[in-house]
């Protein structure tokens, strides 16, 4: 085997796991393994000396009250999709989960791991490609200079890195103002998902506000009002088992023909799960018409960063936004 050997440790206590990984820069967490095993054993991109398996920690399960759904970080994607509150109150979260990966992968993949999945950028995952600012700072970006960009970001992207955050689940979650619960050596903290990710800027290797050893213990999803209609629309190259080219998670409340509340998340386009605040601003208080939806899409896609391989994406994103909103809010196409 060419891949570096590692020590396998099975964690049975949250505090001990956090202490162990925090104290050891060469230790990494292992949850469902669908990103971690892939990048360690197959691509050789991650080279931990110690792998701490967290799947037996008591961080699994879902509870709900009137206002909030609380999900343990080790709950699987399939388990969350099967939850009755998710089906009843958060149908677009369920749709986003089931539109992702395959049943086999969803049985393995955890919610914490989904938030922290690494980019699918093929240059990042190919150790024979030397220029990747995310893997090795200040080496350049093969995706921008090469010809193979397609599944790449156009929002939050720039000359240093155009890597996509490919999660489907995070798209409705970011729209809903989900909160991430984190346990570090100094204790627990709660971080809004909208402040959890960091844009590439001049350090594409830094992806979140987490410090090494911080453990995501769960998420809290605020439940939208009963009158809200929501949907998840995913556009991709094949009908199933494929990442999004563009996806839209939208939650709209329309009263008397006017949009009173709008929440919009975009997938397939952002270096981080994208909260479409410019579009939300246009929508809120405006008539629920296709004209409004077009203006909203236009506002969000005003300044995309494209390379030849992603030049098709801004228009695809605009159209997908308009279609998703029209399906929810009506307003004649």
């Amino acid at each position, binding site marked *: 085997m060419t891949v570096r050997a590692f020590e396998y440790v099975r964690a049975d206590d949250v505090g001990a796991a956090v202490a162990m990984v925090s104290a050891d820069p060469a230790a990494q967490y292992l949850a469902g393994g669908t990103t971690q*095993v892939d990048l360690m054993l*197959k691509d050789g991109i991650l080279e931990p000396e110690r792998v701490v398996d967290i799947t037996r920690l008591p961080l699994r399960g879902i509870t709900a009250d009137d206002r909030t759904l609380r999900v343990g970080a080790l709950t699987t994607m399939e388990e969350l999709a099967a939850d009755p509150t998710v089906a009843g109150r958060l149908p677009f979260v369920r749709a986003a989960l089931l539109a992702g990966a395959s049943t086999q992968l969803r*049985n393995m993949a955890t919610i914490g791991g989904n938030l922290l999945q690494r980019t699918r950028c093929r240059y990042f995952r190919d150790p024979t490609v030397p220029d990747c600012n995310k893997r090795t700072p200040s080496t350049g970006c093969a995706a921008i200079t090469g010809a193979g960009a397609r599944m790449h970001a156009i929002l939050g992207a720039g000359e240093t890195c155009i890597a996509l955050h490919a999660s489907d689940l995070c798209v409705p979650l970011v729209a809903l103002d989900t909160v991430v619960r984190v346990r570090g050596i100094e204790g627990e903290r709660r971080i809004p998902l909208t402040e959890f990710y960091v844009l590439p800027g001049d350090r594409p290797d830094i992806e979140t506000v987490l410090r090494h050893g911080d453990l995501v213990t769960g998420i809290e999803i605020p439940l939208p009002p009963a009158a809200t209609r929501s949907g998840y629309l995913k556009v991709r190259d094949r*009908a*199933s088992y494929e990442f999004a080219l563009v996806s839209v998670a939208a939650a709209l409340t329309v009263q008397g023909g006017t949009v009173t509340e709008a929440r919009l998340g975009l997938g397939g386009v952002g270096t981080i799960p994208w909260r479409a605040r410019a579009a939300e601003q246009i929508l809120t208080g405006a008539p629920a018409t296709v004209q409004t939806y077009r203006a909203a899409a236009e506002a969000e896609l005003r300044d995309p960063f494209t390379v030849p391989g992603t030049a098709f994406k801004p228009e695809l994103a605009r159209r997908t936004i308009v279609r998703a909103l029209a399906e929810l809010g009506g307003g004649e196409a």
Partner: protein
Amino acid sequence: MSQDPHHPPPDPGTVRLTLSVNGAEHELRLDSRVTLLDALRDELGLYGTKKGCDQGACGACTVLVDDRRVLSCLTLAAQCEGRQVSTIEGLSADGRLHPLQEAFLRHDGFQCGYCTPGQIMSAVALLREGRTGTDDEIREFMSGNICRCGAYPNIVAAIREVAGEGAR
């Protein structure tokens, strides 16, 4: 944390574990890097589970762990301590094929057969999940199993038959 203090592993790069496969327990000492797929094939000689892409993309390595379908190529063997692993070899009982195996034969649900063990293990779970209401539902929830030979229509027909009247 972790390792049994009475049996400290001699080398931090190895793990000792009891792997329970098709009801039989196996005491193993493995390199920590060994996947469940490689443990099944190289350590236990269970060659029914196939290695296609070895990277989570094709479903040829599908097995059940505690009755849920997973990809054995992205699962570390060490993660399966205390879990029940089921493979294609454990499907037939007393020399009788599982109904899905028979249906795959009857409907020609394969050409080269390389994807077939994964297809069948996935379909076993699909039936249990109750996702066989329509052909579209079968197709959607079998999409993690790729067939290079394109036997899809016959695979769907075989699953539909076993699922019974419900499918259309």
